[in-house]
Structures are given as C-alpha cells and as structure tokens.
C-alpha cells in the first residue's frame, strides 16, 4: 500500500518541474533507445502512411467544398487511432521491462544508484515521450495533407485528436507495462499485450453489441459499460470535443449529454486517468517487490 502511495506521489511530482534527476536520465535513455529502435520507425511510418491514406482519400471524395462538420475525414482518423495507437502503446509497454530482464539489462540498470520506482517511472516517461513523437508526427502530417487539400476539418479538432490520442496511448502504455512487470518472458508479455488489444478493440465491442441486442441493455447500462473501455472513452471524448455534442452516437450519446452535460469532459478525463494511474501504480507495487531476475 505504501508503495502505491509512493508511486502516486512520484507520479504527481512528475508533472511539476522538479523532476527527479534519476527518473529523467532513465527516461532520456529509454527515449533514445526507443527513437532509434526499429519498432518506433515502423510504427511511425505505418501510422503516418495509413493516416495520410485516410486523409487523402476522404478529402478527395468530398464533393461539397467548404462544408465542415463531422465528416469522413475525422471519422477515419478516429478509427485509425483506435486501431493503431493502443497496439503501439501496449506492445511498447509490454516489450520494455520483460525484455530488459531477459537480456540481463535490468540487473545492470538496478545496479546503478537508482531505485526501482525511478527505473519504472523513467521508462514510462521515456516511452510516453516516444509515443508522443510518433502520434504527433503521424497526425501532424495528416493535418498537413488536409490543409494542402483544402479540407474543411477544423484546425482545433486535429489538436484535440492528437492530445486525446496521447492520453489513450499513456493509458495503454500503463497496461502494457503492467503486463511486462508481471510476465517472466518478453514473448509472454507481448503476447498478453496483443491479446489485450484484441479484447479492447474487438471483443468488448462485440460483447456490448450482443448484450444490447440479446439482453436489451438499458441506455445507462450500455453507456456505463462503454465507459469501462478506454478506447470507447477516447472515441466519445474526441467526438464530444470535435462536434461539441454526442448526437452522432444516437440515443446513448443524447442521453450522455443530457444527463451529464458539461461534466462529460471531467467524466471522460477521469476514466482515462484511471487507466493511466491504476495499472501503473499496480506495476510499481509489483515491480518494487519482485526479484529482478
């Protein structure tokens, strides 16, 4: 319990300028490794290429010049983020500690004058920064293409999309690192991450659909269950931010806006924050207790 509180308080301290020097140096090392690694290059190129494809195709097809709104462009980008960003973040998180342990890197790291918590947080910050770079390069070039094509997507919606994608990435990175701390082998950790990705992207939605059709779930139940899934939270939040309403999501969206109104931003934020903090705290608790090798 004390470890969790310690983890939380360090987490809080991260956001203030008094960053622990150890955390920072681990983070920089992790960022450098990540940025120079093959996965980063692959994911960034893949994400940017797919995003550019989506942007190019959707702005080419729009027949009505100057009509802005929640069009196919934004829908396509939200869709792409939902598919790619969680996969990226989950596997990045899962691959870090377990593989360091396998390579004997972890023993080396922990022999330095740094605490385990600092190693964990440093890795989290470093990988988070790498993901931020990846998302920004991807979505930034999408925005560039859209501007060049004269698409009517509002500028602010791209900023929202990038910010919220980063939030989603941080949550999924937390989950990935938890898997990595728990697993004994890197392959198991990455496998678990991919399984989790499948569950969050497809299985939970299919279950929700089946539940709605078969069990006749009530709207508030459906909404509550959707809020458990960070991907749905990201999706609803981006729609709410971009379109300033959730009409587009039918009765459940109307219900959400009507029931919670201005508090929706807070609710979405809290849900996403829970996915960032809880798995990371748990990972910190487990990691501080376990033998390194």
């Amino acid at each position: 319990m004390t470890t969790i509180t310690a983890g939380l308080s360090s987490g809080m301290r991260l956001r203030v300028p008094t960053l622990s020097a150890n955390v920072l140096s681990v983070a920089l090392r992790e960022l450098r490794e990540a940025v120079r690694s093959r996965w980063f290059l692959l994911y960034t190129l893949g994400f940017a290429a797919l995003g550019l494809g989506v942007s190019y195709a959707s702005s080419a097809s729009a027949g009505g010049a100057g009509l802005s709104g929640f069009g196919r462009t934004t829908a396509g980008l939200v869709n792409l983020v939902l598919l790619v960003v969680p996969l990226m973040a989950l596997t990045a998180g899962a691959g870090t500690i377990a593989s360091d342990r396998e390579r004997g890197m972890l023993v080396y790291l922990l022999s330095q004058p740094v605490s385990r918590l600092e190693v964990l947080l440093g890795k989290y910050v470093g990988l988070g920064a790498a993901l931020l770079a990846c998302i920004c390069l991807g979505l930034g070039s999408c925005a560039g293409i859209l501007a060049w094509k004269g698409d009517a997507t509002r500028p602010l919606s791209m900023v929202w999309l990038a910010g919220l994608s980063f939030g989603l990435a941080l949550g999924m990175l937390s989950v990935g690192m938890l898997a990595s701390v728990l697993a004994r082998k890197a392959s198991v950790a990455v496998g678990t991450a991919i399984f989790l990705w499948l569950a969050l992207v497809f299985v939970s939605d299919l279950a929700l659909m089946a539940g709605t059709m078969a069990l006749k779930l009530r709207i508030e139940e459906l909404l509550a269950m959707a809020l458990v899934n960070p991907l749905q939270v990201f999706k609803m939040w981006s729609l709410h931010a971009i379109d300033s309403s959730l009409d587009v999501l039918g009765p459940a969206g109307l219900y959400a806006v009507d029931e919670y109104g201005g508090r929706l931003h807070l609710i979405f934020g809290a849900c996403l924050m829970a996915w960032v903090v809880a798995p990371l705290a748990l990972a910190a608790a487990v990691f501080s207790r376990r033998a390194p090798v």
Partner: protein
Amino acid sequence: MFVVLTMLLALTGPASVQEGMAPPSAPALSDGPVNTGRLGAMIREAAPGAVVLVPAGVYREHLRIDKPLTLIAEPGAVIDGGGSGDIVEIAAPDVTFRGFVVCHTGIDLDRENAAIRVLAPRATIEGNTLEDILFGIDLREAPDSVVRGNRVGGKVLDIARRGDGLRLWRADRTLVEGNTVHDGRDAVLWYSTGITVRGNRSVRCRYGLHLMYSDEVTIEDNVLTENSVGIYLMYSRGVMVRRNQLVRNRGPSGYGLGLKETDRFTVEHNLIHGNRVGVYLDGSPFTDAQPGVFTRNTIALNDVGITFLPAVRGNRLSANNFIDNIEQVSIAGRGELKGNQFWDGDVGNFWTDYVGYDKDRDGVGDFVHESRTLFENLMDREPKLRLLLFSPTQQAIEFVGRAMPAIRPEPKFVDEVPLMRPVAVEVGAGGAPSAVGLGAASAGILGVGVFVLSVGLSGRLAAGLRGKSGRGGGA
C-alpha cells in the same frame, strides 16, 4: 430538459390537431386599458385611412388599432409594454404598421402575450424590431397580410416557457418575407392556404418553420440554423420547398426537414447540412396523387441523410448529392424502401460512398449503387448501437457481412444509375475552409513530434532545447 422537450414535442402533435379542428374564432383581447397614452390619442384622433407619422420617443402603452390606418414610425419610436400583456392589437382590416421597436410583453403563456396581434385581414407588418417578447407577430384570421423584414427576438427563457416568434392562423395568401426570428419557440404557419415564406432566417428556435394543414405553400430561400427542427410540414398538400439552407438543426428531434403525411410536395435545390437527421419522412407522400420529388439537393454531413419510416413509399429522388452523411439513408426499424425510387429516368444521385467506376465515361457509374451494410442494418433495428459507431468493430462487422453472403442483408435501396460527380445546386455552400488554421495546427503538432524526436536522437534534453546553437557551442 430532454424529457420536457420530448413531452412538449409529443404534446404539440396530437394536442394541436385536436385544437386545430376548431381554431379559436373569438379573439383574445388585451388585458387592461388600451390607447391611454400619446400614441393612443394619435390613433383615436386619426381619420380612417389616414397616414400617421409617429415621432421618435418611448411610448409606454398598449395599443388597439381599430380602424384602417397606416402607422409609420420615425427612427427611434419605441413602444414599451412594460412587461405585461399584449402590446399592439390590430383589430381593423387594411392596417399598415411599419418601423417600430416593440418590446417587453408579459410572459403569460396561457394568454399568449404577443408583441403584435392581428385580428383582421390585409395587415402589413413591416420593418419592425421586436425585443424581449413572448409571442412576436401573431396573425389570427388575417388573410392577405404581409409580414416583411421584421426582427423578432424572444425572451431568454427555457424552451418550454417561450412563445412563438411568428404565427399564422387562418391567414390565407399571406406573404412572410425577409424576417429574422431568434431564440423563439416556433414559427407556426397553420391553416393558411396559398402562403409564401421567402428569405426568412430562424436561429436557435424549436421549429424554424412549422406548417400544419396549410396547402399550396411556397417555402424558398430561407436560412434555418441551430433550431431543433428546420422545417416541419404536417398534413399539408401542394408544398414547394426550394433553395433553403437547413443547417445544424440538432438535438433529440433534430431534423433539417420533416414531412408528416404531406402530399404533393417538391423539395429542390436545398442545402441540408450537419443536421442530426437531414430529411425525415413519415407518411409522405400521403396519397398516390403525385410522387414526392427530391431533386438537386445537397444532403451533406448529417448524422443520417434521410430517415424513412417503414411504410413510406412513393418518393422519387434524383440528382441529389449525398455527401458523407454518417448514414446516408436509414429506415427507422425494419422495413424496405422498395416503394421509393432513387433515380429518375437515367439520372440517379451522387453518393460519396459509391464504390463503382465509370469505364465508358458517361458520368454514370457502371454498377448500381446499393446500400447493404450489416452494421447499418443492425443500427436501424437497434438505434442504441450507434454508440459503437466509428470503432474498428464496425469495420470488422461490415467485412464479415461482405465475406459471408449468408448473413449479408438485403440491399436497403438501389440506385441503378449513380452519378459520378456531384450535381450543381443553386444554394451556396458554407464558409471557405481555413487552410491556414489547419496548416498552423499541422505545424504545431509536427513541431511537438520533431522536438521530442530530436531530444531522443541527441540524447540530451538541453541539446534538444538549445538545438543547433548548443551543438555549435560545443564544437
């Protein structure tokens, strides 16, 4: 709020029909004394048929104009009702009332406190500005009138406590032109045959234009934005709807254009953009007398382009642009659209989701456009599933639907001759896209990415911050 609105909408339907069977013939009179002030004296003293020029000034009184007069306000003439009752009542035919500012009615919904109430034919209400009023211009049994160029601003009240900005009740052949109504409840045009509604604006009301039992009507060049419903036509025959802009009418009952049991109608050259539902069809056309004609409309970026209730048939849609509506066409519940035709002769519609090509380059797609997607089919049956829109599961389900013909739904509708290019529509499009803003956003987002990347590549935060100069100094 949602409940109240729904209840209100539910009530307006049947309740008003009941009421409508016998419209009130006995006019409600203003409360309290009228014509007591300076302006009242001018009206009393004027001979019938006279032209009265009203000098600038604030007149705190309630008026009844009971003889044919032409009242023309000089700039700055204000009639202030002081927050009670009706303000101006026109009880004689052939009255012209022009250029006044009329403000501060009461807020009694039962007595329908109005800024200007007309109870006689051939009135001309022109160029007035109505502010802080419950009901704006209320024409009762006032045929052959003209309501032109007025600005009507409602009281800032909850929608359930507002009054109608504009109301016609048995006012046949009236012209409603160039008025602006904002923050009101409805613009109600009921039991009025042969009216023309042209070039009006309605913003942030409930119904932009609400027609009921009004036949042979022309509605053109109006701009109706951010209302709950743009235009709702009910139980009317012979309606022309053209060159209107119906934009961002949203909320639980957000329709751009709704047609309920309306017959013999033509909808053309309208821009229907960003509404929750672009066009809502319920029992229209009502008879087989004439197909419902939809042609040369741009229906773009609505959550649903057109919603058909299951039994709707007899519509003919051609040369429309269906642009990036999240669901282009939906059927509310189970049913089919076989009774409606999505082309006319060899002209179909332009669909942004058409996947075919045009090898012979005749402007018509070589394959039919048919809409049969499994997820939309599920959504039509269970609207709650809309919550899962845009998630990858949606794509997965569509893919499964395509891959396994056994579970592929029947086509919702077929356009046999889909157009390859959008059709020109007379009404203008929205504002120009802001490429500069988007470019700036792009640069900003990219900038963050490049910065983090450079920190990663250099391995030092300080180097990343100082960039080249730092490295130069080191060398």
